[in-house]
């Protein structure tokens, strides 16, 4: 993938991007969360 053959490397990129998407979506959904 994009010149990188080792799945350990490109899966690291994919995982990091998915985590970033999670932080954005979660932060957006909970930006008005009530206090505990």
């Amino acid at each position: 993938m994009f010149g990188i053959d080792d799945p350990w490397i490109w899966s690291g990129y994919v995982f990091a991007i998915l985590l970033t998407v999670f932080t954005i979506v979660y932060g957006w959904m909970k930006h008005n969360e009530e206090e505990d």
Partner: protein
Amino acid sequence: MLDLSLFLIIAGVFLVATLYLGWLGYRRTVSNEQFMVGGRKMNPIILSLSYGATFLSTSAIIGFGGVSAQLGMGTIWLMALNILLGLIVAFLVFGKRTRKIGKELGALSFPDFLGRRFNSPFIQIFSAGIIIVGMPIYAAAVLLGGVNFIDASLDINRDIALLLLSVIVAIYVAYGGIVAVMYNDALQGAILFFGMILLLVFTYSTLGGVTAANQALTDMAVDPGVGALAADGMTGWTSFPSFGSPLWYTFVTTFILGVGIGALAQPQLAVRYMTADSSRSLNKAMMVGGLFILVVVGSAYTVGPLTNVYFFNEFGKTSMQYAENTDMVIPMFVNLVFENVFLGDIFVALFLLALLCAALSTLSSLLHTMGSSAGYDVWRYLHARRIGVDDPMTVLRGKDGGLPKAMRASRICTMLMMILVVVITYYMPLSIIAKATAVFMGFTAAALLPAYTHAIFSRVPNARAAKFSIVIGSLAWSLWAFFIHTSTSVNIGLCRALFGKDSLASLPWTKIDPLVIGLPISVLVLLTFLLVDHVRQKGQPSTA
């Protein structure tokens, strides 16, 4: 070499902004609570940029960028762990509870938080001691990263660069407190963010595009080959080291786990949770933080390995063959790659500024943490004893967080810690920035993470279990670092002085990071004491 006058113009504008924000912080800092946690009402955008800029410094860009140049793109898993543990788990699991409990307790620093939560001056002083002893090494590594870049880019004396950086940081931290630190972090973080995007885009465009550049790097595993590191398990710059090889252990246990897990127990990061006014602020901050880490760290860990293609094309050498020091790879690359480009000087000047921002933001936060640990946590305790307060905890529960002199003590200690950091910088060996970072983060995780976790999740925190966990965790980490793990024992030299060799063990133990030993022992000690005390309590007759 970059034109000094051009850089001075750009840096002059930046310096004015820095000092203005420092002055703003000074005006808004009239109590211990404002000096230490910004009055607990920090804006979420500033919080996220400050957290990110503190977390990621010259250490991540120069240090780990250089390690990536030497060992390859496997460090990308450290980036994933930075986001997963250093941001998501840190904010959602640790941050919210730390903020809530910290506010209830009136805690103003990380050691103060632990001390109050366990009702134990010993824990407060001991954890402050860990910061005072260990953090200067990390701070020196961060400072070294900034100085290395100035050294490679500008025709000015290295000592003067070191002195200038130190004086600027010391002044705005000592007088502006956490408000000045976080405002400046946000400014520096924003500059760093765009600087790293610029570097990534320019690197790929110089090397012929994403796929062509990556493929060229992949092909380098064969020609010129991975050299001497092949025997240690290196397979190429776009592949992970061989499983179970010495390099794999160093890569996974020191660089990925050491810094990945270590981020959870970083005092300078934990105190940022306490500056938030609500959980909502932490959620909003997380939204910006993820993107910030992805861009800044992702760029550094991608550009690092790609420098090999550039140096090989230009000079027929790998990055390490050319720079001979992991800490100089990125500074040399940036200066060379922009050399013959239209407006290249401006790019180098801007990138130099971004790098200086990375150094200043982390250094200022570390300095603030060290200064407040020494001044607020330790000095205040000793002062309480001197003026005859029998129970030091009564001082800990002062109305605005303690004695009025505590803030002045924190300022003086900040200056003293800066001097100590500068002295240590002169004794740092080559290729040390990433290692020193991993050492400090691993040490704090092994010593403090189990007790910190217990402090925020237990309804009835057990001080005895926490004390033993912290002390034995520190001891286990130290013994392993001093006598087994060669990467650290070589620099400390105690093992060689006592036994005439660098390690008392053989492979693979010599490559396993002290964190992997110290942290489980610290957890085990905590659980054992919790279990013993639980059984004891059950065995006692009820007094109801």
